[in-house]
Structures are given as structure tokens and as C-alpha cells.
């Protein structure tokens, strides 16, 4: 078995990132889309931590901190917004969000 190196971690991170992207592209429920976006952020966190370890530079882990904190605040606002929309429209489907058209 080859020793696990930076590339292994990066490949996992890229695959996770593209999984998130796929979720954003194909799922139609706003909540699941939002979870897919969290997958993308987590992929970036993994890449940053791996780079941090292999470059011997802790700055990457600090950036992960910032990402986690900002993601938490973003989720709080985003979910409040989704709940507010659900109260008015009774839907969380992007296909039902067609009021803004010509």
C-alpha cells in the first residue's frame, strides 16, 4: 500500500466538492441544495487542512475556523429565510419559485 500523501486527500476533497456541485445542479429542494453547498464548503475545509499539514503551515487551519464560523451564521440567516418563504408559499421547491418573471 502506497503511503497516503497530499494527493490522496486532495482527490477526496475534489470528489466531495463535485458531489456538492452535483447536488446543487440536480436537486430541486432548497434545503437539500443548501446541504449540498455545505458539502462544498466541507471539501474546501479538507483541502485547507491537508495543505496545512503537508506545507507545515497552520494558517490553513485558521482559515477553516473562519469558514466554519461564517457558514454557521450563513445557515442561521438562510434557514430563517427559507422558513419565512415557506410560511407564505408553502413550498421549498425551486420549481415553484417562478413569481419573478416577465
Amino acid at each position, binding site marked *: 500500500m502506497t503511503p497516503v500523501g497530499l494527493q490522496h486527500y486532495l482527490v477526496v476533497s475534489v470528489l466531495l466538492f463535485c458531489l456538492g456541485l452535483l447536488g446543487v445542479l440536480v436537486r430541486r429542494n432548497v434545503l437539500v441544495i443548501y446541504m449540498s453547498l455545505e458539502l462544498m464548503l466541507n471539501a474546501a475545509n479538507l483541502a*485547507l487542512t491537508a495543505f496545512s499539514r503537508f506545507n507545515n503551515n497552520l494558517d490553513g487551519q485558521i482559515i477553516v475556523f473562519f469558514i466554519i464560523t461564517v457558514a454557521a451564521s450563513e445557515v442561521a440567516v438562510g434557514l430563517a429565510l427559507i422558513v419565512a418563504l415557506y410560511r407564505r408559499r408553502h413550498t421549498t421547491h425551486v420549481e415553484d419559485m417562478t413569481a419573478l418573471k416577465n
Partner: protein
Amino acid sequence: MNPAMLSLELAVIGLALAVLLIDLWTLHEFKHRLGYLAAAGLLVILVASLCCASTGEPPATGFSGMFVQDGLALFFKRIFLAAGVLVVLMGVEFRDRIPMGLGEFFTIILMELAGMMFAASANDFVMVYVAMEMMSVSFYILISFQRSRSYSLEAGVKYLILSALSAGLLVFGIALIFGTSGRTNFAVVAAEGTRLAQNKLFCLGALLVLLGLAFKISAVPMQMWAPDVYQGAPTPVTAFLAIGSKAAGFVLVLRVLFVAAPALALHWGKLFTWAAALTILYGNLCAIPQRSLKRLLGYSSIANAGYILLGVAALNPPGSVAVLYYLAGYAFTLAVIFIVLCLVARDSDDIAVLAGLNRRSPLLALALTLGMISLAGIPPLAGFFGKLLLFKAVLEQAAVHRSYLWLALVAIAGVVISYYYYFGVIRAVYWSEEGPEMTPIAVSAPLKVSMGVCIAAMFYLGLCPDAVLSAAAKAVQALRF
């Protein structure tokens, strides 16, 4: 570490917190005065930045190189502050359509403004991310502020999803840049620029970062949110998105390209010419059939992002000077148009509400006409001179690379197409059947003054551009080409 560098930002944040606190002891019917307080405060900060704040010469960096105060940052901060004053005044006019939380509305506008000012001074990818998120989170709230209108909420959710997607791309790009360069500071990354430009992983990271920023400036391929969100958001917020968010996106694009990765920018001229050409064509062609004024301005905003990208794609100092000049003129032009929309388009923003505007209020009709003329790029207003500068920069580059010629042709075609829909608006004001609503429109004194200032600024920028041009020329000394 030098906290005095942050004086402008700290003043804005302090003002925001003061408004939030005073709101607690303000009776409901007096809450709009908080808006006047915020506008007055911002005006004082703007004047202070013009006379006594440091000129940004020589550029000063602080906070471990995170923050830079130079001519470029100050130029944009003044645009943001001026836009902030106008947006807050629009918010006061808009108060009857904001059912609750007027004090918080002004607070979040001020916080948003602080985020934009930090973006203008960002000198590190971490600061880029944090400032962008500060802007995004504030905009989620501002866009969906009219909770009782489902348009507003729908626009908020659309902005939320696409903004979070662009943040995901940005963060992954920053991760790759950090991994390949070992640092996130612009100066350190630039110092290793030539080596990194060979590294495909670094290029991929820079590309992802630029895609994330393309969202803020609403350029192809991240432009699809603009029309929907512009239409659904409360009008003052739409104005702030069009003026502030776009300018903040462009200052970050300029910094990332010409401060952090000048070696890379040289290879990417083609990428930017394509982005500019597609953005111009998309915005102008889709704007033609629009009936909703705010939606029309959404597409026009995409088209304008394309024009401004011409200056970036030119990859030369005149191009960047033109970007700065154009954004200054664009801010005043859009401010005047959105003030008119705040007053006129109350229940619907269909183009039919403009019918008979010249009899309901000749002042508003004139202001809207001048705004549209400036957007269309007809002399002698600011929009004309800005476009002229952008075209000149591109043609200068065309002398070196022939491929820039067709870019200039596409841009001129775009301008010609845009005449159609801009004059459609003017026609609706002067030559249309009388509308159902013919009562005169009362304009409050602060808005009259701000419209006067904007119109004066449009003429001033168009007729004697020298002062602003020399300021812009000083500002772009921070960039390397």
C-alpha cells in the same frame, strides 16, 4: 498594528451600532429620523475622508498585511460612502413599504457599507472571503426585508443559494491558492508569481476565485441572479446591489488580478475578452423585451458589467483608470434613476407606471431622462465619457493584439442595441397615453437635493473629468501590469 488606519470603517460601524441602540428608545412614528441621522453621519464621514483622512500616499499596510490603505481603496470607499448616503435617503422615502424594523434596516445598510469598505482595503485572501461574506449575509437580509411580499422573499432565497454557491467556489479557490503558494497574502503570492503561473493547480484556484467574484459583478457565467433579484428586492436595496456590490466586486477583481497575480493576468487576456463580450451581448439582448423597470435595470446592470470588464480585459493602466471613472459616474447615474423609481413605481414597476410622468412631476421626468441618457452613453453626461475611456483603452490594446478589435466591435454593437430599450423608457415618460394615475408626486426636500447633486455630478464628470481622472490615475498606481 495601527487602529487609526481603520478610522473610516470604525466610524461607519460605530454609526451602525448607534442607530441600532437609539432605535430602542425611538417611537414608531419617528423611526425614519434614524435614516436622516445615518445619512448625516455618513455625509460627515465622507467629507472627512475627502479632506482630512490620509491621502493613501504612501500606501500603508497593517494588521499583518491584511489591510491596505492606498489610493485605490480610498477612491472606492468614497464611492461607497456617497452611495450609502443616497441609499439611506431612499430608504427613508421607502419607509411606508417596510412594515417593520426600519431602524434595523438602516443598521444593516451601514454594516453592508462597512463590509464593502473592508473589501476595498483587502490585501489578503482571508480578508476577501470575510468581507465578501459580510456583504452577502447583509444582502440576504436586506433583499428579503419586505417579508410580507413573496417577491421579496423569493428574491432573497435565489440570492442566498447562488451567493452561497459562489462563496463555495471562492473558498475552494482560496484553498488551492493557499496550498500552492503557502500563503494567502497578496504581496507574498505576487512575489512568487512567475513560478506559480506555471502551476496548473494555482491557475485553477485563481480561476475559481475569479468565478466567485464574477457573481458579485454579475458577469457571465455568474449573471443569472441579477434580473430576478433586482426585480424582487426593495428598491433602495436594488440600488445598493447595483452600485455598491458591483463596485466592491470590481475592486476585488482588480486587486486579485493586478496585485496578487500580475504574472497570471498576462496570460488571461483572452478569458476576459470572452467574458466581457458575452456579458455585453447577454445583458443587452435580454433587456430588449422587458416590461418591468427593475428587471430591465437588472439586465442593463449585466450589460454594464460587461462594459466595465472591457477595462479589465485591456490589461493596461488606462483600462483600469477607465474602470474607476466609469464606476464613479455609474453610481450617480443609477442613484438618480432609483430615486425616481422609489417615488414612482410604488405598487408595480411595470413600464406603464411612467405614463404621463412629465405632467405629474416634470422634475422626476427630467431626472429619469438624464439618467437614461447617461446610461445609454450620449454626450455630455458621465456615461458617455466613461464608455469613451473604456473603448480607448481597448483600442490601445488592439494596436498590440488584433483580437481586441472584435471586442470593441461587439461593445459598440451592444451600445447600439441598448439605445432601443433606454429610449423605450424615455418614450414611456413623454409620449404615452395618459395613465390611470395622474396625481402630482410630492418629492421630499432631501431627495430633491440628492437628485440635484447626482445630476450635477453626472454633468461635472462628463464635462470636466480631469479631477476625477487624476484621482483615478493616482489610485491605479497600486496595481501592477
